[in-house]
């Protein structure tokens, strides 16, 4: 087969290793040579990356392209992936002594190297969407990209419906305007709607999907443990011993967890269990990059037995021969789980091995459903997303930094990017106005405009400092304020500021796999010391937990509603469900089960209302906000609520007797707009949009709470803007993001439609078996609504007054 390709050095390299080309690799080359843009959809381990590079390699080898011209651009969502691919590609190039220079360029690349790359571009450059945006904002960018022949986008499916994807899409369109003949190749994992991914990749008609079918099916089981699956929790501590046994029997295991906190805890517990001195490492996003690199290297050298990892290892990186994947907690989505399973036996035609470890009882049901879905080839859907205007604002400024632009030209370039294809000219002009001077109807900042028309009637930046500031603010990921964790002179990594706010001197926490004692905070540093404590206070990051996917949630409801499935459940789960059906009811496939019961909480009688929706944490949270609002109006005095992936629990001072009065489709959605305006979510999204669009700078000094000075708070701006310009661009962005993201409005509307006239209300005199995990889960999530706050303050004040005998 290899003779078809006629790339001698590569053929030789393959022969030497006793390898040959896969069909899809040959196909990719053919299609690309015939002028097609190609989307290659294949399971992991199918030689996908090499397929992506073959057309470009062939061209470089056979057509001896000019020196010092950028020929191929490889873009991946992960820095680590660029490095990994760089390594894999260097191997045939060096082996065959080819004159092809391959380099990476990411946020971690040294200024020296970046400068060199500017003067002497490599043939192939591997980069991220953010670094690409920066490159394109350089004055010389047109010259730099004009000879570009190929763009390869790896793991493109994860970029499609995100702001990072918007940014990439805009920049691809820009590259197209600079180098119109450049071909694109997208590499994607198996997804449900491939057509959408293809459209995101290219607007050309000459474009094709190459779909590689799976040839083997993963072997997945749920871990059998000696101990019972606990009622609640996310840490799966109960199963550590059994997990350790499995690790021992395999040569290289990845233990996937969903949060950094889980990673810390599981890592620690495994070491406590580690009598045989297995080499167990940890890998997550907030560890210093040197530490992560070290772990990655050890993995590829086979010098490690097990790695506990978060999504930082999700994507297609080949680090050694993993033969077992253990997933702790539910994977929350089918596609994500498949991707993780794909880490094991990273070879095309051998089955992967995976073990699921549910951390609580609801998760047990979820894990069963996930296995069922994979067996039946049900995949999660990638939802489409409209291009965000804050990202566009960033892009417009970036373009102005690189060269003066003509409004119509840029508009046409922008609507050529798939997420922005429906953008109106009016909206586009609004964005340009915003970039210019904030887009306020009060023309207050004309004199300070960032961009303005030059003598050729083109928009250009008004001074050089605009470019410098733009460079500091590129990107669509807005992180919480981070602090460095310092042990002596060594920086161990970073944690979010709010986590430390809850710590007192002497408190201990797990970080980077060690127990640390918090001592003090100075500037941006958290000063810690090592300690021999064994019961640390655990860092819990709220971020990083994805909601249960719609597809998986349907499977869980199916499982619950059909008693004939239960016989396969372990006894404890079976008994739990039987008890529930005796005591109350079981959730049905299409209806909604609601339970109400009284219960003491901190010594006071409260009334609980539980809705078993199974619609994911985000939709449940929104439902919780809306229902509390309604309850407040009716006078039930809601206190707070907790939303999990499965259910919503609200507790109030007065009893809700008629569920229909607080759960009703029309009334609920009427409230939504009004409610959204008050929620902290809108404020958070506003802050993100303000940063992405450049209204507030990432590095604004006011954010550091030092000394007696004011901290600049985006909430204050938000309130003023809402009052004076309620239709301002950034408010529009914040609203859209809220509806789409954490509010999960689509899902909630579908849910309300589905359950209409299908609500079963069970009035109980005490907590039901199904509600036990929820009540245990109740933590500090509360309604952040000023009216609610008044209750607490009133109560708190009364409490204290009576304490001192004044009430």
């Amino acid at each position, binding site marked *: 087969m290899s003779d078809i390709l006629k790339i001698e050095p590569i053929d030789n390299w393959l022969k030497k290793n006793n390898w040959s080309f896969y069909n899809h690799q040959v196909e990719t080359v053919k299609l690309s040579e015939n002028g097609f843009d190609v989307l290659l959809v294949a399971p992991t381990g199918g030689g996908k990356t090499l397929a992506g590079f073959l057309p470009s390699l062939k061209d470089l080898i056979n057509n001896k392209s000019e020196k010092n011209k950028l020929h191929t651009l490889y873009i991946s969502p992960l820095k680590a992936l660029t490095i990994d691919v760089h390594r894999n590609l260097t191997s045939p190039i060096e082996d065959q002594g080819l004159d092809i220079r391959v380099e990476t360029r990411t946020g971690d690349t040294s200024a020296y190297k970046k400068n060199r790359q500017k003067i002497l571009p490599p043939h192939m450059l591997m980069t991220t969407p953010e670094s690409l945006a920066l490159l394109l904002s350089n004055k010389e960018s047109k010259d730099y990209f004009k000879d570009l022949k190929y763009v390869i986008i790896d793991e493109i499916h994860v970029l499609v419906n995100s702001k990072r994807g918007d940014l990439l899409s805009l920049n691809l369109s820009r590259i197209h305007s600079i180098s119109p003949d450049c071909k694109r190749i997208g590499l994607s994992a198996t997804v449900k709607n491939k057509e959408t991914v293809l459209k995101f990749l290219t607007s050309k008609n000459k474009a094709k999907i190459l779909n590689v079918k799976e040839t083997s099916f993963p072997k997945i089981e749920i871990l059998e443990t000696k101990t019972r699956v606990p009622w609640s929790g996310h840490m799966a501590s109960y199963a550590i011993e059994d997990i350790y046994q499995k690790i021992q029997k395999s040569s290289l295991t990845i233990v996937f967890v969903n949060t950094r906190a889980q990673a810390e805890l599981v890592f620690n517990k495994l070491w406590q269990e580690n009598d045989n001195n297995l080499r167990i490492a940890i890998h997550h996003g907030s560890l210093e990059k040197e530490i992560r690199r070290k772990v990655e290297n050890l993995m590829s050298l086979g010098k490690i037995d097990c790695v506990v990892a978060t999504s930082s290892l999700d994507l297609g990186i080949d680090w050694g021969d993993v033969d077992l994947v253990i997933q702790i907690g539910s994977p929350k989505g089918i596609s994500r789980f498949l991707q993780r399973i794909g880490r094991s036996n990273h070879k095309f035609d051998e089955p992967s091995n995976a073990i699921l470890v549910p951390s609580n009882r609801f998760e047990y049901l979820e894990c069963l459903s996930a296995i069922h879905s994979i067996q039946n080839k049900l995949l999660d859907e990638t939802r489409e997303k409209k291009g965000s205007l804050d990202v566009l604002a960033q892009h417009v400024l970036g373009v102005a930094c690189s060269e003066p632009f003509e409004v119509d030209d840029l508009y046409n370039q922008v609507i050529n990017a798939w997420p922005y294809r429906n953008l109106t000219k009016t909206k586009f002009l609004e964005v340009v106005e915003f970039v210019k*001077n*904030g*887009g*306020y109807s*009060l023309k*207050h*900042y004309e*004199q*300070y405009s*960032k961009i303005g028309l030059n003598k050729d009637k083109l928009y250009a930046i008004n001074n050089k*400092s*605009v470019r410098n*500031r733009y460079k500091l603010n590129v990107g669509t990921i807005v992180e919480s304020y981070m602090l460095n964790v310092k042990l002596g002179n060594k920086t161990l990594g970073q944690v979010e500021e709010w986590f430390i706010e809850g710590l007192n001197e002497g408190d201990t926490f797990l970080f980077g796999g060690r127990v640390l004692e918090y001592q003090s905070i100075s500037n941006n540093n958290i000063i810690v010391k090592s300690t021999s404590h064994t019961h640390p206070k655990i860092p819990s990051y709220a971020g990083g937990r994805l909601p249960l996917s719609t597809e998986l949630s349907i499977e869980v409801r199916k499982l619950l509603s059909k008693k004939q499935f239960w016989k396969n459940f372990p006894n404890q789960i079976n008994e739990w469900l039987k008890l529930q059906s005796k005591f109350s009811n079981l959730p049905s496939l299409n209806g909604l089960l609601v339970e109400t019961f009284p219960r003491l909480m*901190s010594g006071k009688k409260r009334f609980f209302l539980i809705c078993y929706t199974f619609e994911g944490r985000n939709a449940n949270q929104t439902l919780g906000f809306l229902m509390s609002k309604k309850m407040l109006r009716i006078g039930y005095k809601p*206190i*707070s609520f907790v939303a999990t992936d499965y259910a919503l629990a609200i507790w109030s001072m007065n009893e809700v007797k008629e569920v229909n009065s607080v759960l009703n489709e029309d009334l609920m959605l009427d409230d939504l707009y009004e409610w959204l305006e008050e929620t902290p979510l809108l404020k958070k999204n506003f802050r993100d949009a303000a940063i992405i669009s*450049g*209204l*507030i*700078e990432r590095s*604004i000094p*006011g954010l550091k709470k030092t*000394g*007696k*000075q*004011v*901290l*600049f*708070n985006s909430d*204050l*701006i938000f*309130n*003023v*803007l809402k*009052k*004076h*310009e309620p239709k*301002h661009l950034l408010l529009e962005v914040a609203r859209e993001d809220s509806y789409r993201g954490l509010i999960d409005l689509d899902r909630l509307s579908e849910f309300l439609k589905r359950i209409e006239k299908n609500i079963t209300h069970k009035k109980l005199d005490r907590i039901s078996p199904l509600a036990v995990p929820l009540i245990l889960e109740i933590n*500090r999530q*509360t309604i*952040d609504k*000023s*009216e609610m*706050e*008044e209750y*607490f*303050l009133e*109560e*708190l*004040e009364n409490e*204290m007054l009576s304490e001192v005998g004044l009430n």
Partner: protein
Amino acid sequence: MKVINFNNHKFQISKEGILFWFDKQIAIIADLHLEKGSSFGPSGQFLPPYDSEETLKKILNTIKDHNIKKIILLGDTFHDKNAISRMSKKVIILFRSLIEKYEVIFILGNHESKFEIGQINFLNEYVIDDIHFIHEALQTSVFQISGHFHPVATVKSNIKKITAKCLLHTNNHIILPSFGQYTGGLNITNPVLKPFLNNETKIYMLTKKSIYKFTSKEIEM
């Protein structure tokens, strides 16, 4: 409003953060930081330029029905020395109407310098009946009403934490919260406020709806 007895005089604090001395027909307000928003403009950060308008309107609305003759502004009325030059017409009209309707006393704050802002006559301090009105509290036994620190406090119920602007009241100090729309806060747990917090200190937390009184023992320190 809540009553505060201070040096045998009766003061009242409104939930907006204005301290009233009705016997003398005086309203006392701290840290307006007018034109803080536009101060970021020259560096290309275009914050919504409506903060001064909000701040001034809120003052006028809060005091209009209280038969007030005099307003004492406790310093940092202007965010910087160029603040007036950046004001919109609307803000200038509002500001004029404030100084025309009322006798306004300007105490000098650390954001201001004496001779550079318009025609305004800044005072280092102002005294009525042994009570000294100053920008930043001094650790002396003199009766003082001041601003400067922008104090906020956090209370924790068994369910949640609430942070709000607050007024501090000790034996010889009243420290007012900042009033300006774009002003942030400094938590009273910060060491610089330690000299003003003792067992007798009363903390009035101001929320949208009401005012709540705590002692420093009840606040999470």
